[in-house]
């Protein structure tokens, strides 16, 4: 069984797993990091959205071998200790979540967007394709704009 070494939320990890095993299952089932959620397994719903070297990825379709040597950040690693990321703060201020299952992915997608686009337009926000089955989109949009202002 091949061995893969990478960093998750600031800690170096080494796992033995088939090279093609999706990172999502390495995180959830082998490492017990369960913030990233399964919703479709084919990069459609994006509930598992996390970061690879700061950019949004969907671990359900990224083989573990592609994580080797890189820095993976999941929702658990977004805050700085007890200090929440501005996107998380905005999510609380606006009271975005309903069932919450898609929200780790939504937050990671928003954080990645704000890294590259400090003042996102409505069209930029529309381009986030993460599904929220509870229909919290209006509040997500409001929270992203609020976070952008906080970070400016």
């Amino acid at each position: 069984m091949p061995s893969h070494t990478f960093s998750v939320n600031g800690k170096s990890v080494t796992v033995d797993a088939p090279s093609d095993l999706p990172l999502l299952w390495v995180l959830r089932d082998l490492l017990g990091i369960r913030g990233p959620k399964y919703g479709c397994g084919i990069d459609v719903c994006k509930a598992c959205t996390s970061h690879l070297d700061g950019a949004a990825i969907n671990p359900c379709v990224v083989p573990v071998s592609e994580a080797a040597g890189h820095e993976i950040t999941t929702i658990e690693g977004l805050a700085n200790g007890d200090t929440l990321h501005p996107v998380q703060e905005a999510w609380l201020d606006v009271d975005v979540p309903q069932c919450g299952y898609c929200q780790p992915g939504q937050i990671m997608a928003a954080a990645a967007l704000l890294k590259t686009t400090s003042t996102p337009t409505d069209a930029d926000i529309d381009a986030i394709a993460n599904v929220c089955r509870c229909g919290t989109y209006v509040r997500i949009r409001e929270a992203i704009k609020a976070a952008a202002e906080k970070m400016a």
Partner: protein
Amino acid sequence: MAVARRRFLTYLVAAPTLTVAAQLVMDAVAPATASAVIPTAPAIADLVDLGDILILAGLPTSDMLVLAVGEDGTATLGLPREEVGQGLTTAIAMLVAEELDLPLTDVRIELDDARPELLFDQLTGSSNSIRSLYDPVRRAAAAARVRLVAAAAARWGLAAGKLTTGNGSVVAPDGRTASYGSLSVAAADASLTGLTVTLKAESQHTLVGTPTSRIDARKIVTGRQEYTLDLDIPGAKPCMVRRPPTVNGTVKSVANEAAIRAMPGVLDVVVIPTGVAVVAETFGQALAGKDALEVAWGPGTIDGLSDDGIRTKLKAAAPSFSFLALTKHIDAEFDFAFVSHAPLETNSAVADVRSDHATIWSGLKSPIVAQQTIAAELGLPEDKVTVHVVQAGGSFGRRLFFDAALEAAQVSKASGRPIRLMWSRIDDMRHGRMRPATHHKLRATYALGQVLTFEHRVAAVETDFRHGLGEILTAMAAKLPTGLGNETIAQTLFLTTVKSPYNFGVTTQTLTEVPLTMHTGSWRSVYSANARGAEEILVDELATAFGKDPLSFRRTFLKSDAQRAVLDKAAAAGNWGRTMPPGHAQGIAFHEEYKSRTACLVEIDATDPKAPRVTKAVVAVDVGRPINPRGLEAQMLGGLTDAISTTLRAGLHIDKGLPLEGSYSQFHYARQKNSPTDVQVIVLPPAADAEPGGAGELGVPAAVGAIANAYARATGTHPRTFPINFDVDFTPFPR
């Protein structure tokens, strides 16, 4: 029912004089009351709705709530309901905090395990949780408060009547305080008797009724909220099930079991009634194993049946109208497709089955029936099966059923190890539950500015209510005042939920079911989304026939001022009637259910009729007494998004015994790009002495009507089949 109708017909026969008088009034000003229109007799749902029945059924056990005050000063309430995102735990915590004079952060809500002693009072559905728990929760908290006060009175040697409470403490007139935590042991003393429990006056509420954020929001945004498959159950192994190529197909044989067992990480292969389960070290490996299975399948229960055949059956089932079209009339027929519940968390459960007991964890809205069914399946006494209810990632009706829990128990028993079972998204859409397809025949007759009759014949594929609701209705039937005793479960549910809010003369709404053995279930607002949605479309077409504006037409024919107040709020805030560019239009609609009412106004951009977008929405809502207006807003946003999705693009195509759709790339539930950028929800303040009405499903039907009406106006069409844009614009996954 029949008696009431005959009496009403007599009234209608006398109507012509009234009609003339009404005509005169109508031409003057929009009447403020219904006296100028032909009144419609109250529908059953006006007199007793499904929520009332469930409250009645739960009354004998409604005080079996357990509220504990700990030495740390926190209060913990066991909640015999499920949290699926509707914000119930927050609203209930607010009720406890209010009645106990305790900070909200010191209130904990724990979801109760299945408690069979609660009989009918552990079912989460019918927008009923706040309605049924508003009094019992306050009574429980008030009882705790009076004991804490009595304990402090005994400690200080003062009369209880001299003491007050605030911020988690009992306060003496001299300023001494005793925290609830310090009193929690003394307050449990059984010798404190003769206490009178008095509820705080609603006018004194300071927390209840104010916008409050969810108590679990921080856990959610940090990824620490645990759903079923996030729980650490020692030794529990991932499991996925290969399912048949048609709904309810059966396993005949497995050709390559040895090869699957040899795959990396695979631990076991187990045949269960619904398919072939693969147990592995990771879900990725279980998924790979199930995909590689070669299974010979037996036939399912709807093989060969497709949408066209189902629609033909539905049309044939819809009865003829009772009223001949002797006067002017409008007839219309509507079709609505099957719709997946599609909660983001797919069907999932953990089961640990041993020889003499079993433990289950799952997101369950009817845990008692789950416990009974699983115990029977395993051959264990019910009290040897512990069923833990886990907060779930959405439901929309889906988690009334417990199929994943049953499967996990079957696999755990056969495999001899704890099992974490998860459905794939494809299976969740194809073999999961769905809102049944429906066909609607409507006829409205009118003359001299009056609607004389309004008939609505609903034909629906049978909805499966075998999750405990059926038992409740059966048990309560004899006690119902409206002669429902002889109706079927589905008829009872239809008649206690669907009603017209308008004075449209003789109004009849009927349901005819087409039995097909497939996986249906209640979907947020059950019959009302389609039935009332279709009616609101016809209301717009009637307004046109009358030469009236849709808003003033509704104002004229709504039954009460409370209804008109909600409609007026939405119309004013949404600037009803403003000029719109070509291809754009406004739409408006109204809906009332479970003692609550709402109006929705939307604007749509349909310049490309194949890719319309709702750009703006205003929702006004009156639930009698809102507990958490921020949570109520969230529910209305959810209902709006459901309506945008199912009206414009989201549905399931049935093709030769199986839905074609297998993911969100195919079942087009709305994304951010389909969502309006401008939404306003207006929560009406509580009416004096009003009880809270239902809210969880309220938002869908009016929004369906408003969106369809806006689309019709923007495009100059008359939409009749929903979703409006419903092409198979994808390559289906293999079966």
